[in-house]
């Protein structure tokens, strides 16, 4: 994964600022609660939701189990349909392939469909370094790009911005990138969407190269699928002469029929719609319709490391719906930036440390960025048991024994020893009870300080339960 976000502080530090920013808290609360309730209604419309979820899970597990075969098959099918397939082992290689392909067309600008894979590889910055300007065309990506900002949500990268902030960004920045914002632009969402339409139209009409990701690749047919709402995807996928799609190797589904599951579960889980406004499917190139040249870049970038972990590999089922972000109480308060990755929220907390490894401070802290409440698992349309993977990754982080974990390990093993010796435990309990009058309200020391900053300690009982039991029942 690209180093764009590395050097980030640990999650608790990064979250602290967000937690105490009332505007951000308000924006996140409003947006996540709006979509959370809508999703619940959209899902409740389907009596067979649990069965669709199980089918989606199994299709993905099956694909991942035979991923080598399906990758070869998708390569064959795309090639047979007139496309060219490239393989990228990491972000750098993917960016190099794309930059070379763009340069070969003689163009110095490209239009982009929102794509998590190219955000992950830091493609825009890599292209910029080669003198190629990449225009983001998804409304939220545009807001992020114009604002010189970072995405904070998978589906709605500008979720941390409210309408007033968006209007201010459009007014001050659009002119720098092309057509300026209309005079007297207000903050009504319809007017803001109209401003984006006008600003981007000239770019779509003159674009010669489009760059996309894909939601699905069908192995048996070589078909790519992009699910979107605004029509910017259709613009990028059909108007340019050259289309380059950068797609993670886990995005495969084996058969055309498999789409009947995911096209039911993805829109309802992400935008809470029965169906998103536009879904584009294409297979290689078609004479007289759309791009004449099509390149598919298959991206590994840490996915095979994730695949090798028997518990963690379920994260590769993810279809990037972001339902887990929208229900997550931690995401709602910490915001997306605190996760230090293009993948925020619960899925990011298990995906980033697997794609990037747990070497950095931020990645080692992400598995702990959860109260393990399980709301993410409950809404996941491919049943990724995120709490299970979080705990599994905590074990890996604890084993590597970094910052704070050596002492913690000693404490945990000591606790276990005590708990495995009831007589010693009982002696400790009695001591705590007997000295209860002496316990201060706020305590120093790691752990105790954090606890007593905002909470009183429970009042110590006069005796532990096991002593009461001995007196009354034994």
């Amino acid at each position, binding site marked *: 994964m690209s180093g764009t976000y590395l050097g980030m502080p640990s999650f*608790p530090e990064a979250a602290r600022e967000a937690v105490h920013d009332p505007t951000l808290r308000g924006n996140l609360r409003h947006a996540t609660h709006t979509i959370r309730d809508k999703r619940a209604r959209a899902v409740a419309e389907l009596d067979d939701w649990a069965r669709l979820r199980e089918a989606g899970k199994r299709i993905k597990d099956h694909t991942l189990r035979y991923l080598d075969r399906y990758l070869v098959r998708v390569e064959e099918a795309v090639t047979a349909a007139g496309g060219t397939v490239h393989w990228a082992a990491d972000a750098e290689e993917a960016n190099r392939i794309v930059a070379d392909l763009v340069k070969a067309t003689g163009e110095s600008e490209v239009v982009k469909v929102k794509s998590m894979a190219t955000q992950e590889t830091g493609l825009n910055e890599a292209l910029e370094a080669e003198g190629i300007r990449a225009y983001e065309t998804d409304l939220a990506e545009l807001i992020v790009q114009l604002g010189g900002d970072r995405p904070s949500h998978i589906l709605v990268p500008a979720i941390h911005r409210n309408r007033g902030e968006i209007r201010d960004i459009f007014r001050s920045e659009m002119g720098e990138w092309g057509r300026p914002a209309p005079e007297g632009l207000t903050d009504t969402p319809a007017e803001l969407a109209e401003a984006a339409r006008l600003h981007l139209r000239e770019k779509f009409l003159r674009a010669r190269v489009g760059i996309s990701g894909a939601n699905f690749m069908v192995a048996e047919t070589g078909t790519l699928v992009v699910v979107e709402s605004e029509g910017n995807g259709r613009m990028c996928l059909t108007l340019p002469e050259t289309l380059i799609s950068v797609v993670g190797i886990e995005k495969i589904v084996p058969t055309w029929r498999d789409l009947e599951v995911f096209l039911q579960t993805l829109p309802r889980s992400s935008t809470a719609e029965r169906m998103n406004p536009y879904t584009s499917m294409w297979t290689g190139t078609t004479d007289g319709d759309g791009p004449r040249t099509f390149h598919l870049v298959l991206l590994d970038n840490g996915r095979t490391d994730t695949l090798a972990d*028997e518990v963690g590999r379920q994260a590769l089922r993810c279809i990037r719906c972001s339902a887990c972000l929208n229900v997550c109480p931690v995401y709602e308060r910490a915001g997306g930036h605190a996760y230090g990755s293009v993948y925020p929220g619960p899925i990011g907390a298990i995906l980033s440390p697997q794609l990037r490894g747990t070497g950095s401070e931020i990645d080692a802290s992400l598995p702990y960025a959860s109260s393990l409440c399980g709301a993410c698992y409950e809404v996941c349309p491919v049943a990724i048991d995120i709490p299970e993977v979080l705990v599994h990754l905590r074990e890996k982080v604890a084993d590597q024994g970094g910052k704070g974990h050596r002492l913690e390990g000693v404490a945990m093993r000591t606790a276990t020893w005590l*708990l*495995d010796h009831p007589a010693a435990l009982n002696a400790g309990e009695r001591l705590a009870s007997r000295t209860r009058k002496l316990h201060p309200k706020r305590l120093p020391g790691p752990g105790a300080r954090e606890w007593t900053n905002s909470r009183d300690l*429970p009042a110590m009982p006069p005796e532990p339960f096991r002593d009461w039991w001995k007196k009354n029942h034994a």
Partner: protein
Amino acid sequence: MRVALFATCVNDALYPSTAIATVKVLERLGVEVEFPAAQTCCGQPQYNTGYRRATEPLVRRMARAFEGYDHVVTPSGSCVAMVRDNYPRIGAKAVAEGRGGELADAAASLAPHVHELTEFLVDVLGVTDVGAYFPHTVTYHPSCHGLRVLGLRDRPRRLLEAVKGLELVELPGAEECCGFGGTFAVKNADVSEAMGDDKIRNALSTDADVLCGADNSCLMHLGGMLRRQEAPQRALHLAEILASTEEEPLR
């Protein structure tokens, strides 16, 4: 029917009143309950913090302590979830690591017998009216592990609704996590506190006298915040409400 109480380490050391209340409710319903003294802790703090191997001695201890009981009852949803959900995982990982099936067997022998208190009352005893009396307004917070891992659904609320004198008011945003999360509460103290604040704001908006829950670890966090803020509401475990009677009311 041999029934054992698994008091849990938190209740044993910090909230004996909850364990005592559980014994009283069970005895009032004619259940003869035992307290195997070899029990301590299910190992959830270790496991959830990433110390699976340090949990293993406690898995063995739990299985030994409760061997031979038909039912093991505990007033803590998250400890039941630990045994039911994570013990088999600990066993499976040990097998995968080539360390034999002993832990897996321990998990399999214990897990089916362990019940959260409201499950035991409603499903095993078939009771919702336990003869309790508690003339106060109560709002109920369903802790996450009870709600989502165990699927307790409306069992706690049905028990509360049957309590004489009790007025149950809906807690807004009830299904949202309170922010405790074990070591999360100290590792991510700012976020935990923000979640707790929102939960308490919702609880206080009901004007209830009592914020009731079925998991004392969550209540330790919420109750600690309520007391720190000197709020006119107290956190109370469900078992203590169910133990309260007209003859012996809880004050």
